[in-house]
């Protein structure tokens, strides 16, 4: 039986061009019609360290970044030392035969050590040998029988049409590598079908940007922070053509406050950050809740606490977002499971933010945000719903910006609208926006007023719960075990379930695209019949597990947490499933 997918891994020092070579390889695979999933392991250094990127590609949709690679490209000795023992049976280790040493005693059966003089071959084209990666890339393309014309297209994507000589030189370098494979045992003959119909390849962060554009986002203010920075990079390059003002500002306090200012003025506005930056934003998010100003905040999580592991993944910021800001204010927390959902939930977040006039948080993580994946159809026909506007039939006389309504939503007016002047206050205020904090607080009428204003704002949670996507049960209704997860754990969890299915274990999966407000009734009824439950999430304390228990009274019977900085692999979840159902 021929294989349906393969895994490619390239490692070297930071600055060796590992990630750009991997991205080219991923692009070649996606242009071959394969589904692609990448994962990069890197450190917080600009030069040195040991970095590697894994590209998994297959004829069928993928659910994780895969495990043992069929092809390993080692650009330095550290890569061999760390990875050569992990190459799949029958796989290939591509390395510079004149600079590095393999240790065949570590290799699994039938692993081919394919030594190529990468540096020397590259130097035949350019004295500084920068193209040694490209030589290796060409070899990998040949090993996997990928169509060589995609190599040129991938290079054009990087260097554009402005530098045709660079593209031509790199294609030549790739050919040198391919020829070496021809002379040393030929391709792996995996027999994977290539349609050569290209699939779009993007990161979760880029999908967030597309979702934002589709929803009419016109303002992004951000401060650089891994792994959220690429949202700003993409938007800074492509946003202005769509009328998006993109600003790198002095800190995250400025970022969220500017976005709130833009939202108040009537622009669809967002900010993006990781956990540390989000910590700085919490007071302003409460300001959005109190002044009833729409804003979208994207939180791409990395491993905490504190500076933590800046280049590693985790799902450890749920408690932070649940409790962001003093006091109670209505919020929704959406957690995309896939790049497609990074697109669709970000787009939906803009609608929810304006319909309910409150901050909406979209939470992804490094694994989902930075990994390149091929995506299916993205529906760019996003309906744009701006919510209740005062000028639509409202009368300017006695305009009450914070009028108490059944939904908790009041008519909104943008500055510049004649007749609907009001003052938004972060102090508690009346329906018309007059403060009750200063001279009225505690007086009999104001005690009642305060209570009613709180209730008005918090009523929005009912609508948010209704409009935000509820939990989904995936897999057989009648199962030995129900997995519970959120966010990027979705893929590895589903892959684990498919694996254990082969062992005769029936598992289904309850997934939560909305973390708050929790769909308590749906979750309760979906979990009622579960024999055993295993909550899987990327943090220490089981932050979502605790929320689920607090809201539904249902405590998952088993828990698998992960806090080592790495994403879940299908194997470790499958192992845990076996342990639980044994």
């Amino acid at each position, binding site marked *: 039986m021929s294989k349906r997918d393969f895994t490619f891994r390239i490692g070297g020092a930071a600055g060796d061009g590992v990630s750009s070579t991997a991205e080219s390889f991923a692009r070649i695979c996606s242009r071959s019609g394969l589904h692609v999933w990448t994962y990069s392991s890197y450190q917080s250094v600009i030069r040195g360290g040991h970095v590697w990127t894994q590209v998994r590609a297959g004829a069928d949709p993928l659910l994780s970044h895969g495990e043992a690679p069929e092809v390993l490209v080692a650009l330095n000795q550290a890569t061999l030392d760390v990875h050569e023992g992990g190459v799949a049976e029958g796989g290939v280790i591509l390395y510079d035969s004149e600079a590095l040493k393999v240790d065949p005693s570590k290799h699994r059966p039938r692993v081919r050590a394919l030594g190529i003089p990468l540096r020397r071959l590259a130097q035949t084209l350019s004295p500084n040998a920068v193209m040694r990666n490209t030589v290796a890339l060409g070899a990998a393309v040949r090993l996997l029988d990928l169509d060589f014309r995609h190599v040129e297209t991938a290079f054009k994507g990087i260097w554009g049409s402005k530098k045709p000589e660079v593209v031509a030189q790199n294609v030549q370098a790739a050919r040198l590598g391919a020829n070496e494979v021809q002379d040393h045992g030929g391709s792996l003959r995996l027999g994977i079908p290539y349609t050569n119909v290209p699939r779009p390849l993007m990161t979760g962060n880029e999908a967030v940007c597309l979702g934002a554009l589709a*929803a009419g986002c016109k*303002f992004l203010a951000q401060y650089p922070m891994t792994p959220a920075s690429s949202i700003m990079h993409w938007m800074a390059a492509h946003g202005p053509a*769509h009328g998006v003002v993109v600003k790198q*500002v002095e800190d995250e*306090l*400025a970022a969220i406050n500017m976005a709130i200012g833009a939202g108040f*003025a009537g622009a669809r506005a967002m900010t993006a950050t990781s956990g540390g930056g989000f910590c700085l934003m919490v007071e302003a998010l409460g300001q959005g809740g109190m002044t009833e100003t729409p804003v979208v905040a994207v939180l791409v999580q990395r491993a905490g606490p504190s500076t933590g592991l800046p280049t590693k993944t985790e799902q450890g910021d749920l408690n932070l977002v649940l409790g962001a800001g003093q006091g109670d204010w209505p919020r929704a927390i959406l957690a995309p499971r896939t790049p497609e959902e990074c697109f669709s939930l970000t787009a939906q977040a803009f609608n929810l933010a304006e319909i309910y006039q409150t901050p909406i948080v979209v939470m992804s993580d490094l694994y989902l945000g930075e990994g390149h994946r091929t995506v299916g159809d993205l529906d760019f026909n996003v309906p744009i719903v701006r919510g209740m506007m005062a000028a639509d039939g409202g009368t300017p006389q006695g305009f009450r910006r914070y009028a108490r309504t059944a939904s908790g939503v009041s008519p909104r007016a943008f500055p510049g609208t004649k007749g609907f*002047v009001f*003052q938004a206050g972060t102090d508690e205020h009346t329906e018309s926006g007059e403060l009750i904090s200063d001279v009225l607080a505690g007086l009999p009428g104001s005690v009642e007023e305060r209570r009613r204003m709180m209730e008005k704002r918090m009523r929005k949670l009912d609508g948010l719960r209704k409009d935000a996507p509820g939990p989904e049960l995936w897999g057989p209704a009648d199962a030995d075990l129900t997995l519970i997860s959120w966010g990027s754990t979705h893929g590895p969890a589903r892959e684990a379930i498919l694996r254990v299915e082969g062992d005769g274990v029936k598992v289904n999966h309850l997934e939560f695209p909305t973390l708050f407000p929790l769909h308590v009734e749906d979750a309760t009824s979906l979990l009622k019949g579960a024999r055993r439950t295993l909550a899987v999430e990327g943090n220490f304390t089981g932050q979502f597990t605790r929320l689920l228990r607090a809201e539904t009274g249902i405590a998952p019977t088993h828990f698998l947490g992960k806090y080592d900085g790495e994403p879940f692999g299908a194997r470790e979840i499958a192992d845990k499933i076996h342990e639980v159902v044994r």
Partner: protein
Amino acid sequence: MKTAFELQTYKSAVKPTWCPGCGDFALLNALQKAIHALQLEPWNVVIVSGIGCSSNLPHFLSTYGFHGLHGRAVPVASGIKLANPDLHVIIAGGDGDGYGIGLGHTLHAMRRNLDVTYLVMNNQIYGLTTGQASPTSEKGMKTKSTPIAGVIENPIDPIALAIASGATYVARGFSGDVKQLADLVQKAIEHKGFSLIDCLSPCVTYNKVNTYDFFRERVYSLEKEGHDPSDMKAAFARAIEWPVVQHERIPLGLFWQAKGVPTYEDLEPALAKGAPAKQSLGLEDPEELLKHFL
């Protein structure tokens, strides 16, 4: 012909909450006079403030207002201005708000030269929190938070900071002279670029040092002494006179004005597509966008 707006049009029904005699009344009056003199449409004016006694100001005028968080008025105002550059955006607040907790934002907003006006009611004390030292409190001043040795930090010099940071209209007013203050505010609003007015605004309750009399004995007019506000070196020299160099003479008026400097909005490429708050929403050509990913 347009109907003229009366002075009263700009006043709201909310009675100011300040102590009788508070310097902030003068700034409120000056601002009202200035926007009246300019005949701004009240619905096209947004007053943004932070937290503090002076930050209650937006409620006392019948324009749009955003009364936000302590120290964050400047970024909120920046977002409003970038989203809709047609609005007149005026920031109002105190010395704690703008020179203390929010100083970082103040400096960065000035170096952007956004076309907004920042009115700082500087009373050299924290009033709303009942009398602690502020970033402009004079050295040696005893306050609730400095009861033993008094303030041992040097005060911030907002005028020098503003000139150095790229603000293009920098002035100091005094609540004891509403006429001059109104004139400065009017010119600040008319100025294209970031304008800062540091208004000496005595706190009659908690600052017993920097009183109206204290200032009346010391203030003098830059204009009358022939200061040229287009001369940056001269502006710096005047800026550091008080409180850096000496404590006897305090210059009032326009220190520095750079005309014709492009504003942040002028330089922002995305605004060529129109104000973010006014553009039609939705993507015209998603297929074109997807090409980046193939």
